């Protein structure tokens, strides 16, 4: 899922468990920089991958197209 933080960073969130935060590099975005890692880690962790200001998030990704829903538990 994607959410808007108060500072307007969009963010990919996936999985449940202890928290892991992944921050992408210049010109990338959360999905292109971390894609398969988000899926791998989300089996044991809650993964948060913000998109930095200016990140070009393609429209199909803006509404959580690729990440697992976050479990309400933990």
């Amino acid at each position, binding site marked *: 899922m994607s*959410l808007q*933080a*108060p*500072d307007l*960073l969009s*963010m990919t*969130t996936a999985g449940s468990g*202890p*928290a*892991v*935060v*992944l*921050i*992408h*590099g*210049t*010109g*990338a*975005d959360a999905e*292109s*920089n*971390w*894609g*398969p*890692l988000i899926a*791998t*880690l989300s089996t*044991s*962790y809650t993964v*948060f991958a*913000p998109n*930095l*200001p*200016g*990140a*070009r998030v393609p429209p199909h990704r803006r509404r959580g197209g690729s990440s697992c829903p976050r479990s309400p538990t933990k």
Partner: protein
Amino acid sequence: MAAVRAAGLAEGFHLVGHSLGAVVATAVAARHPGQVRSLLLHAGWVSTGPREALMFDLWSRLLRIDPELLARLLVLEAMSPAMLAQANGSQLEEMVAGFTSMLDTRILGQLGLDARIDLAPELHAIRAATLVLASADDRIIPPPHQRALAEAIPGAQFREVPGGHGLPFEDPAGFFHIVTEWITGQQARTQATA
């Protein structure tokens, strides 16, 4: 950090960053030492020097003229010579197209930030277990920058692996394996000491 706080991570989190993301992660770890359980930094740096400022300024100038020009330069600079030597012409053009699709003038703000990084006064404040990971063929932020980063962060480990600056794009399997292994080890250590 506001995004992280909004996500309710007051109890602590493992933090991983690549390139500018490594710089941002370093700053978060220095400014919120109680909340960062572990820190993995790939292709990060301490301070932007004149050479890097020149490079980021060139990137910004190219981007304003035509994003594809910057994409072509990034393929040549971000990928390791070993990887480029194996690619044929159409594969190289595919990489150019991939980079081009991600670049537009909205990232000028990120490039402006890249050009004025100075974390030297803050690094001593980091308390998280830290792994500084350098790609041996990084020609954007060469390994000496990352060695300096590791030396300035208390207790940080340093590791060099084959590849270029764009390791997450060049060898995602290898890079993500290192990240997963590190976080698994750090989480086990956190639980053992809890």
